[in-house]
């Protein structure tokens, strides 16, 4: 039984992954569509905006497809011709090489030196942290910042230009106002720049109800190191704004120096750190699975229509031997280390598999026997099919933009040529060695000089779509695409940390929290201000109000309030919302509580008189009536959180 439960639980756990795999599979099985028709069907869809929007902004690289006639395929992509006539207005995000840090093989002394340097760095970081907390704790807490010289001013301005144009505009405005002799306004603008920068750093929030003092207090609390400078600036600003003395150039210069000093030093460092952290958190952009001319969404759809089953591979290529795919396409974003290449080699040599390497800045291992040479082709040079391919595939034309070329060994076979040099070549392997035997469709490595044939725009040019189909057809229809995200997924959180090399960062975070905890003590993480109770129970309100009036000798008023409340509740509870007569209510309450009708009627009448402001008769006991009414409420029960009224009321 336990085992069955365990299996059920595992199934539940695995279910979402299976779903993800299905989604990744993307293209369900469907009848194969003829190549040109498939292209037309694909680009008829709205997501391929460049085919439907004449003003679609193209990048310079995408414009290159226009020169190759992409815009002429008006049947499949009617708006591209017009888009091609416009200037290139968009820009492409450059793919970055991932930063991999690996210690070089150094001798013992150098390695020791490296560790010493690393240790020093950590010690300095710790020292900076401790000093920060000590500063924070000290009463004055103000670290005097030296005013920078003019070179530092320029550096500050340059820094401001780089990171925040808004601040830069304010500084420019301050300069202009100072040049025009309006020093009061110039001081205001310089101060505004400082506030905006502080806001950008998350230290203050500029709001219309906040005074300068509020900002100073916030800075004093969050950044005590700059509070002194900030206070000096605020003093000068307020003197200019509210004082009656003339504002001079010297006054402005003083503010300007302090503001630019603050911008350049502390806050600049804060912002820079923020930007670095932000940059570090952003990986390389996902390699064009989109619907732009440079993307691949159309290619994947096209292959699907042509009978391929295309999956995006997320697991590491090192685990390719566990894959059921027949063909693996390495896109430029896929970065393979030694382990991955070994796994791929084993996968190719021992099974019936094919590998397609679609360009990329990578050193291919020797066993592939080919090398990609960057930017060797001339744009005007067409790509031609090899003799065998011409015979087999017919007269197909291939056009791609300026591209790389290949260098290959003699035992490889060139499929596409450009300027007498190979553009696409393949090599066959059998029992671990290269072979001339092409009978079997597998054990093949196909190398393309670049990935242009796998871009959306390529499908619109010449016979590129058909050629792509023919090139891949020999490797099997079950295809996996390895791109930027390949190898970034992990099977468990620990592996994620290992893969992301997050161990040191997490350790640093833990150390930081530890320091913070030591500094702040048990109060850390505990709310220091308890939340104020916003709303009390309504019955409690009424009781409090009644007591309030009773103490102020307002029994009559209290009876009026409580009486109105009690009458309404009694009507609700006796189901007399329609019948508004007091006698009916008295009858119903008397029946329900067993009290004499006359007593109930007397109470209700007194309550009504009190609520209408009729003065009390001599000898009236309003508070007693209030108590009696509350008892009636208790006896009739109901909701509303009613609590017993104290007996001494």
């Amino acid at each position, binding site marked *: 039984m336990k085992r069955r439960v365990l299996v059920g639980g595992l199934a539940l756990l695995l279910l979402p992954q299976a779903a993800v795999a299905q989604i990744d599979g993307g293209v369900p099985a469907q009848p194969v569509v003829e190549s040109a028709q498939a292209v037309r069907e694909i680009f008829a869809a709205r997501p391929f905006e460049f085919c439907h929007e004449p003003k679609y902004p193209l990048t310079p690289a995408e414009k290159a497809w226009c020169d190759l006639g992409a815009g002429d395929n008006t049947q499949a992509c009617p708006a591209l011709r017009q888009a091609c006539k416009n200037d290139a207005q968009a820009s492409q995000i450059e793919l970055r090489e991932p930063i991999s840090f690996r210690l070089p093989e150094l001798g013992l002394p150098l390695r020791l030196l490296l560790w010493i340097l690393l240790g020093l760095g950590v010690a300095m970081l710790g020292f900076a942290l401790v000093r920060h907390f000590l500063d924070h704790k000290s009463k004055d807490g103000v670290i005097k910042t030296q005013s920078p010289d003019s070179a530092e001013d320029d550096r500050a301005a340059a820094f401001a230009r780089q990171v925040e144009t808004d601040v830069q505009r304010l500084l420019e405005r301050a300069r202009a106002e100072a040049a025009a002799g309006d020093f009061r*306004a110039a001081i205001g*603008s310089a101060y505004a*720049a400082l506030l905006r920068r502080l806001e950008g750093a998350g230290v203050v929030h500029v709001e219309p*109800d906040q005074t300068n003092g509020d900002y100073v207090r916030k800075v004093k609390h969050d950044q005590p190191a700059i509070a002194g400078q900030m206070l000096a600036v605020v003093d000068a600003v307020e003197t200019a704004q509210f*004082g009656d003395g003339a504002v001079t150039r010297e006054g402005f210069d003083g503010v300007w120096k302090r503001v630019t000093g603050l911008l350049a030093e502390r806050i600049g460092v804060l912002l820079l750190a923020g930007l670095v952290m932000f940059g570090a958190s952003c990986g390389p952009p996902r390699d064009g699975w989109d619907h732009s001319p440079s993307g691949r969404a159309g290619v994947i759809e096209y292959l699907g229509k042509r009978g391929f089953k295309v999956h995006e591979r997320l697991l590491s290529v090192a685990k390719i031997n566990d894959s059921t795919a027949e063909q693996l396409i390495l896109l430029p974003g896929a970065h393979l280390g030694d382990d991955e290449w070994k796994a791929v080699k084993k996968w190719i040599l021992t099974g019936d598999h094919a590998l397609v390497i679609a360009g990329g800045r990578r050193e291919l291992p020797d066993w592939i026997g080919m090398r990609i040479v960057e930017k060797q082709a001339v744009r005007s040079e067409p790509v031609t099919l090899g003799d065998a391919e011409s015979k087999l595939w017919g007269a197909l034309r291939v056009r791609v933009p300026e591209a790389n070329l290949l260098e290959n060994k003699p035992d490889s076979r060139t499929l596409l040529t450009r300027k007498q040099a190979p553009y696409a070549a393949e090599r066959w392997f059998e029992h671990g060695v290269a072979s001339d035997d092409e009978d079997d469709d597998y054990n093949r490595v196909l190398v393309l000089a670049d990935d242009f044939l796998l871009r959306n725009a390529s499908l619109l040019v010449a016979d590129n779509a058909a050629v792509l189909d023919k090139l891949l057809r020999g490797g099997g229809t079950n295809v996996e695409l390895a791109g930027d995200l390949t190898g970034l997924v992990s099977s468990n959180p620990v592996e994620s940390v290992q893969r992301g090399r997050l161990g040191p960062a997490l350790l640093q975070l833990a150390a930081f929290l530890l320091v913070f905890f030591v500094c702040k003590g048990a109060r850390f993480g505990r709310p220091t201000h308890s939340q104020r109770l916003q709303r*009390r129970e309504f019955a409690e309100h009424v009781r409090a*109000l009644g007591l309030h009036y009773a103490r102020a000798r307002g029994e009559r008023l209290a009876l009026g309030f409580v009486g109105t409340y009690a009458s309404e509740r009694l009507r609700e509870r006796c189901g007399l919302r329609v019948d508004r007569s007091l006698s009916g209510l008295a009858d119903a309450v008397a029946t329900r509580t067993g009290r004499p009708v006359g007593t109930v009627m007397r109470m209700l009448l007194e309550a009504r008189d009190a609520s209408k402001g009729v003065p009390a008769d001599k000898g009236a006991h309003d508070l007693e009536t209030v108590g009696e009414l509350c008892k009636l409420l208790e006896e009739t029960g109901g909701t509303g959180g009613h609590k017993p009224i104290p007996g001494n009321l």
Partner: protein
Amino acid sequence: MDTNQFQATFETIRREIERALVGQTELVEHALIALLARGHVLLEGAPGLGKTLLVRVLGQVLACDYRRIQFTPDLMPSDVIGGNVFNQQRGAFDFLKGPVFTQLLLADEINRAPAKTQSALLEAMQERQVTVDGVTRPLPEPFLVMATQNPIESQGTYPLPEAQLDRFMFKLSVLSPSHDVETAILRNHLAGFDAQALDRLNLARVITPAGLLDMQNHARRLRVDEGIVSYIADIVCRTRAHRSLYYGASPRASIALLHGAQARAASRGRDFVIPDDVKALAPSVIRHRVGLQPDAEIEGMSTDDCVAEILRDVRVPETIAA
């Protein structure tokens, strides 16, 4: 007197007071500001928090005449302002001055006296004079009333009427001390401090009444920008239209806020007022001059909440142009 002298004197007075009264920095500052702005102060707080001590110490440090009236339910107006007494030797009525004829008056537990007696102070506080049997007599200068009331007890008390409350420039809440302050108070007592024997502290008489008047006049001369005036008016006007307030503050509140801000600015060594001065004093000036709507009271709101809301809504003058 210049601004620097003003600031130095203010700080000296404050330091002397804080020798006896520990941990009530804001209370002391506001009380001094009221004094320098020619205002009166209503102190509200639980018993034993040092309200009376503050006034006594203030009297010593300022070298002013100091009187205390313990308000009781049977206290009569003549017990406060004085009255005409028949002089048998002369065969005529002589005016016997009441305790109000002093420079520093402590009206202790003012809400224990009936409204009739409380009202005896109205003219004294506003006009700084007393009229008895048609004869008006001026009160000595400077004249400051510091009244105390206990917010907890309600048996046998008479809430101050709105007109009386409006005469007080500030209503200050005396808060219970923190653990550290409490410890400091105990240490003081261990070291021999006795609130009943202030002479032993040898408190310095920092300023004479004439010097105090000089400071008051200096504060009144401070520059107030047009934007600040508008800011004050905005704040006070909004109390009259606030949804949670039954009635708003009177123009007297605006004036009190203006003069209070001037005194605060001078105490900080400035010769001009900034929005921070206004914002810091607004709660103390307004909280007792407005009445809460019943529904707001039921919701648990306080007048301080309303003031804070108003301050959030009002735009501070000379906000940065960015």
